[in-house]
């Protein structure tokens, strides 16, 4: 199902806040959300760091 979006940016912070004040269930939702973000960022970070550490072959003259 496609989610309808507003014609203005609701801001990620204000959306997260709704879950935070939504009781225990909301805190669980935010926890899951943050975990997903952490995993996503962690994967991106490790990919980024490994690319930084990749040895670059400089041909000798």
């Amino acid at each position, binding site marked *: 199902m496609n*989610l309808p979006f507003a014609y203005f940016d*609701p801001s990620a*912070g*204000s*959306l997260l*806040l709704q879950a935070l004040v*939504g009781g225990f269930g909301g805190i669980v939702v935010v926890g899951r959300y943050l975990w*997903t973000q952490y995993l996503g960022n962690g994967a991106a970070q490790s990919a980024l760091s490994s690319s930084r550490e990749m040895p670059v072959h400089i041909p000798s003259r």
Partner: protein
Amino acid sequence: MVQFDSGSFRDRSSRVFLHDDAVFRALTAESKATWDKASQSSFFQNLISSGLIVETEELSVDQACSFVLPAEFVSILRHRRIPFVSYPYEWSFGMLRQAALVHLQILTEAVRGGFILKDASPYNVQFCGAQPVFIDLGSFTELAPGEPWSAYRQFCELMLFPLLLQTYRGVHFQPLLRAQLEGIPAKHFMQWMRWRDLFRPGVFVNGWLQSALERNTQSLPTSTVRDLRSSGFHTSMIERMLQKLTHLVEKLKWTPERTQWTAYDETLPHVADDLQAKSEFVSTVCRNKARRLVWDLGCNDGRYSLIAAEHADLVVAMDQDHACIQQLYQSLAAKKQSTILPLCVELANSSPALGWRGRERKRLEDRGRPELVLCLGLIHHLVLASNIPLPEVIDWLASFGGEIILEFPTKEDDMVKALLRNKRDQYSDYSLDRLEFELLKRFEIPWRRSLPSGARTLFHAVPKTRPDGAA
């Protein structure tokens, strides 16, 4: 081709236009499908019957065919016309608070019925006198499972933060909303708050926490709406949020400080002396014919607006003093008065055209032509305090095209003496003779009367009829 209203462009799927003094809304196929479902649902019917939503009907295919619309629009609604459009930066605290509560009530019932409002703008609420009515039917949309309330931030910026600022810090919100049509961002709101305000209801969560979360989530690479949904966000969380916000707004109270204007009638002797004569004068002029729109400029406690409202469809009562307008609104709301609209307007600097290309929000003068203007106890403030030349004031009053009732205090009047006490009297144009000279250029004066206090005169001025019959 139909010309859409210059303020109706943000939501592409639902646009308003005026035709023959009626208000219409064009809907795209998607909006039409939503309208069909919403208008059949019980929550919507209840809101219509309670008068919280503007009366609306869908035009038949034959009626709709008489309008030429862009191809994407497939249906047309006709709304009951609001007698005089007003904006949040002209409302008192009580009016903005009522608009917020109406919005929350409609939203709560919509969410329970499986719908939500796309936006949370106070401009979607209008006042018929002191009665609020929600006008943006294009804002209803179906609520998808797991979808959060996208307009929460807008609700805070345009309604909650202005109300909290007024309640906790006594900051009048009207100049802020007039300058920032999108409202007050959480970050700016927190700049007004002191440390101890963090412990006051609504500030920590809606202000500080929202501001902090906004700051820390600006660069997220993914859609938070989708991520929250997949993390298990539930509609009950929106309902809980709405419940909390409703409790918060219901508890907000602003007690206006006592200003020189709120006690005007009690403190100045000329008011009591002239009260009876002024009331009779206004009543006599007002009852000689029914009028659609009357303006009461500098209305103070609205005493003369009430007299005029007995013989007019609507009186717009304006005063620059927020405390006066708040008190007037409260008394009108308690009586469910629908023929007097109280507005905070500084007449020497009234609401200009604002927004995109200066067309989004209209000038005060462009929102209706008054047939009668009450200008009682005002002209000396405009000339002697705001330094506007007397001929300019008369020119401004004549520009409305209606009759006027004007009260003129001479320089012997105590209030005029008080205004000049610490100033150089540069006002050679401020005299009864000059006033009559300027009035007679544009008006006929069928009736004038000196008031018992001795230094004030009332005029009933009627625009001169031109040879072609036009006023």
